[in-house]
């Protein structure tokens, strides 16, 4: 499985932009990069997915450089309700890992007033 590395935790103040960078050096040609958000006592929630360059939706932006060996999730103007764990995942299209999407430890983002 393509492994990902992301910071364990990040702190921010309300109204700031939070950028979480994820490393995935072994990403395969067919793999997409996906980010999930998890609040306490809830299941993970899909945030955004991308393959290359930049993707933006109403929640976040995802920046992917040309070599695709890393990606950065950008949360604009965070609020207290953005306090959560954020997971970076890379799909693995190899035959023996098909469908086995594994979550790492994620990044705990804490937003304070």
């Amino acid at each position, binding site marked *: 499985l393509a492994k990902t590395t992301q910071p364990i935790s990040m702190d921010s103040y309300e109204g700031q932009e939070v950028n979480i960078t994820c490393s995935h050096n072994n990403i395969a040609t*067919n*793999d*997409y990069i*996906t980010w*999930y958000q998890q609040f306490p*006592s*809830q*299941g*993970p*929630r*899909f945030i955004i*997915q991308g393959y290359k360059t930049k993707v933006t939706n109403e929640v976040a932006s995802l920046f992917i450089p040309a070599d695709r060996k890393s990606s950065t999730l950008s949360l604009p103007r965070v609020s207290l309700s953005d306090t959560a*764990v954020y*997971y970076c*995942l890379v*799909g*693995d*299209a190899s035959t023996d*890992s*098909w*469908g*086995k*999407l*594994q*979550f*790492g*430890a*994620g990044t705990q983002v804490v937003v304070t007033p």
Partner: protein
Amino acid sequence: DTAVSQTPKYLVTQMGNDKSIKCEQNLGHDTMYWYKQDSKKFLKIMFSYNNKELIINETVPNRFSPKSPDKAHLNLHINSLELGDSAVYFCASSQGEGGTNEKLFFGSGTQLSVL
């Protein structure tokens, strides 16, 4: 209008008991999953079913037996519960055949505590 619902929310039981967790999705998805989240927050896939057929069984003990009566339901039965089974179990679904690039929709989890 909950998309993926699982019951119960909390389950406290004694070692050696048998218990079941139920999951239903109303999204019309073809693939359903069970994930286990341990105390360190790692989410590990246990099983996935596509149209009622098992496609992934990720080295889970035989005490765990998933059952999919139809593609909208995937239940998890656990025999002879052990202390190490204590965790949060999440059900999820996806639209396609279960590839790793698919968007997953998760239930709110079942907190299992084995005493």
